[in-house]
Every structure is written in C-alpha cells, then in structure tokens.
C-alpha cells in the first residue's frame, strides 16, 4: 500500500528548547502543528500561538438554553397546558420557577461545556496518525516532541526538516502512514 507523509517529527530533550522551537514554528507561519510533552508545560500554548478557546461561548449558549427551556417547561406544563390547583398556589410564578431555572441552567451549561470540550478536542479519538511513531510514544515518557503536519500549507519536507533541525531537534524524521489507517503503521527515519 502507498505510504504518504503525515508529519515531520522532531524530538527535544529540554523543555526550553521545545518552547523556543514551538515559537519558531509558529513565527514561520505554520498553523498545522502540535507539541507532545510528558507533563503540562507552562507557557507552551502561548509560544505556539494558540488562540483562546471558544468554549465559554458554547457554555453560555448552554446556560441560556437551559434557562429558557426551564421557564418554558414550567410555564407550559403548570401554567398553560395542564393547570392543577395546588393549595391555591399560582399556576406559574417566576419565584417558584427559580430553583428549576437554576438547575437546568447549570445542567445544560455543564453539558454544553463538557461535550463542547470533547468536540473541540475531537474526542474521543480512536486513532491518531502519529500513534505508531516511536518519538510520539516517547513523549509520554521522557521526550518533548514537535510534529508539523503535512497538510500545513507551508509544509515542504525539506524546509520543515531544516527548521526543526535548526531549532535543536534531534531524530528529525518524516512519519508516514498508509492511506488506509487500518494497515500497519511505519516510521521512516530520514
């Protein structure tokens, strides 16, 4: 089966070198790249030029949806569609709707936040194009990894590799995968 390049991968032994490399890759104008580290690295997102997430807007939308549906639910059922006189209480009043308003606002806000987060992170992700790469595996242990994906508009095998090498990357290599992800993955060291 035909192998196509997925990404150029470089290893870094030192967290400062990783942050500097991430910055350099960002400043070269690359947009499709990522860093993999054994532990969270402070300031890495900023160095990579990661923009603020839109998740809060999704959460807010969830909260508004929850509030609106709580009000509508209580008014429709109790005050309009099936009126029951309970101890002479009003059929609908904003006062007694507040606990449900609050709960549904919080509930839908939490749902939108959780599922919005999973969606933005593309989770659950059953397969990742880099997962057969030896460097990528070491990123869970003792190595910092930068990968620039081949679908980046600025990606060329030669320039990208030079950039990563110039930033101190070791074991710089192109990771390839077959067009069909179900077949065995291979790593080709250049």
């Amino acid at each position, binding site marked *: 089966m035909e192998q196509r390049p997925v990404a150029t991968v470089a290893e870094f032994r030192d967290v400062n070198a990783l942050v500097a490399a991430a910055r350099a890759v960002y400043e070269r104008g690359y947009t499709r790249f990522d860093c993999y580290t054994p532990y969270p690295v402070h300031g890495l997102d900023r160095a990579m030029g990661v923009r*603020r997430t839109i998740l809060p807007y999704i959460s807010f939308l969830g909260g508004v949806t929850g509030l609106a549906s709580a009000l509508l639910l209580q008014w429709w059922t109790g005050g309009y569609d099936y009126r029951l006189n309970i101890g002479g209480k009003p059929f609908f009043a904003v006062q007694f709707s507040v*606990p449900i308003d609050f709960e549904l606002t919080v509930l839908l806000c939490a749902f939108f936040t959780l599922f919005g987060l999973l969606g933005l992170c593309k989770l659950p992700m059953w397969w990742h194009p880099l997962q057969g790469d030896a460097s990528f595996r070491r990123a869970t242990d003792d190595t910092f990894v930068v990968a620039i994906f081949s679908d980046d508009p600025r990606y060329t095998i030669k320039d990208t590799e030079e950039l990563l090498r110039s930033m101190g990357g070791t074991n710089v290599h192109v990771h390839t995968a077959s067009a069909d992800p179900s077949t065995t993955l291979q790593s080709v060291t250049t």
Partner: protein
Amino acid sequence: MNPYRIMLGQTPFPGQLRRLGGVLALVGIAAFIVGGLGHPQYWWGGYLLGFIYAMGLSVTLVFFSALSYLVNAGWVAAVRRIPEMLSSFVLVLPVAALPLVIGALTGNIYEWMHSSDEHLHHGFKGLYLSQPFFWARLVFYAVVWIGMHRVIVGNSLRQDDVTDITPTQRNWKLSAPFVLLYALTITFASFDLVMTLEPHWFSTIFGVYSFAGHFVASLALMLIVMRMLERGGYLAGILSREHYHDVGKLLFAFTIFWTYVAFSQYFIIWYGNLPEETVFFAKRLSNGWEIFGWASLFGHFVIPFLFLLRQDVKRQPQLVTIGALILLIAHAIDLSWVILPVFSAAPGEPYQLSWALVLTGWGAIAAMLGAVLIVASRAFARHSAVACNDPYLHESLDYHSGAYDPV
C-alpha cells in the same frame, strides 16, 4: 534592603487617599444633615445605615486577611496588605458606635427597647432582647474584632521586620479560631443591630445574607484601592492582571453567593406565606420601597453578573474596577432596602419611600466610607504597602493562572 518594602509615607498617595476620604466625608455629612432636617429619626436611621456599611466592610476586610492565612493562599501575598490597611477602621468602631449607643438609649433606634409588647419580654426572646445582654454582646463583638485586627494584621505587619516566619506561622494557627469567631460575631451582629429593628420578624439566614453583602463590598473596595495604587505607579512590577483576575473572580463568585442567599431568604418566606414572615418583604415591596428591591436585584446581580462574566473583563484593571464600583453602590442599595424603611414612618404606620431619608442614609454611608479611607491613609503612611517578607510573596509575584491574554 528589601525591594518589596514599599513605604508610601513620602509619596502623595496617603494624601490622595485622605483627600478623597475628606471629600466623601464632607459631602456625606452635608447630605446627612440636609436629608434629616425636619425628621430627626432620619438621622438615627441614616447613621445606623452608614455605621453598618463601614462596620461590615472593615471587619470583613480583616476576615479576608485571616481567611487567606487560613487557606494558605499564595496568590494573595502581594495584595493582602491593601485589605489589611483598609480595615484599620475596625480600631475606631467603638467611637463610631457612640452615636448609636446614644440613639438606642434615648429610644430612637430599637423599638424593642421601649416597647411594652408582651411578646418581646417573655422567655428566650425576652432574655435575648434585654438591654444588659444586648450591650454585653456588642462589647464582645468589639473586643473580638479589635483583637482579630491586632492579631492578624499585627502579625502581618510584624512579619515585615523579621527574617524568620514566626509571625506568619502564628497567623496560620490563629486565623482558624478568628475565622470561626468572625462567622459567629458578624452573624449575631447582623441579628442584633439590624434584624432587631423589626423585633417580631426573624430569619435564620439573615447573618449569611449580611455577610455575603459585606464580603462583596470589601472585595470591591479592595479592587478600587488596588487600581488607585496601580494608577499612581506605586506597585509597578508587583500588581499584575492575575491579582485583579483573582479578586475579580471572588467578587463575581460572591455576587452570585449573595444572590443565592438573598433569594433563599425570600423564596422560603414567599412559599411559606406566613404573615409573621412575609411582613418583612410585603412592607419593603410597596409604597415606593420596591424600587430598592428591584435595584438590588439588578444592581447586585443581573448587571454585575453579566458584566463580570467574561474572563477578559476581570483581567482588565479599568473594567473590573467599574464592576467593583457598581457593587459598592449596589451594597448601599441593598442595605438601604433592609434598614431605611424602618425609619421611614412613625411606629405602626406603613413604610413610605422617602428620598430625604435615602439622602440622609447615603450621606452617612459616604461619610463613613470617607472615614474608612482617612483612617486607612494613616496606615498606608506608616507601613509597607506590600507584605515584603511574606513567605508566599514570590509565589504571588510569579503567579500565572494560565488565563489567555490577547497578545
């Protein structure tokens, strides 16, 4: 020489704070006097309002310091001195309370003191609402609060001059009992000084409601003074967006907490619908006072909630200070709504909104706030504006919450 020992005595800052306090005090006193002309009970009610505002604020500022010791908060070390300085008014509370003592003893403030109503003089209520016990409680509160200020703020200041951390260690231990004592005293002080204005009415959540308001107001005042210091360039390299963000987060959270508690009180009473309980709200949601109820709902919740919701607003010093100003005013509206109606009518008459009474009360609040700033300016003139030897100072200076700032 410790580079973080920021002595402001030789800078214009204490003078600025004193002038601001002086202007507030003068304008406030003028409004207070004019508002009460022809209605002497307006003066007593207005003074009580101003006193509660300043008392709650300043005692809660000491609590904030104690709380940050109790929970070992690292981020707060760079700004903790600001609430500590602003809380100096605690030390003059007994003096500020003297007019209230006179008003109470002459029968102008607390109805129960001269009421012949049998219900108020029987059983536990009779014991609780007896003058000796009442005054003993007030003295106890004053002793606890002044003691808390002396110990917590005192140890914080002592830490400035020594290299070992024994004063801070003492505060770590002593903050626990003081936070507990604060919780009890601020609760019972709100019962004694505010809830007894209507001695037949009761609400067990009233203390929490009062605390929530005081805490919001003290965080708001703290933010405003942080901003004043920053604008003067006195805390360059020390204050960062992270500190505004954290105080802003607390401000936002406790705005919601206030709403939660205020609504809990209202909701239980609304649903129970018992006349002895609903009277509090019925009287405050009619004859004009409902304006203050609605203004509390919007000014203390809806507007600041939506305004402070965004992260970047809490991280913008100018914007978060606007939020703080809104809440400082909203706290005045909230307390006015609770306290002033009682003084708006002769005993037994229905409450009636009176703008002259509101002017008197807000004059007293402005004057008391002015006094808080004047007393604080003296503390700022004497002590470092940063807790320069605090073991957490460097953690606080280097603190990053990881929040996103546009580059």
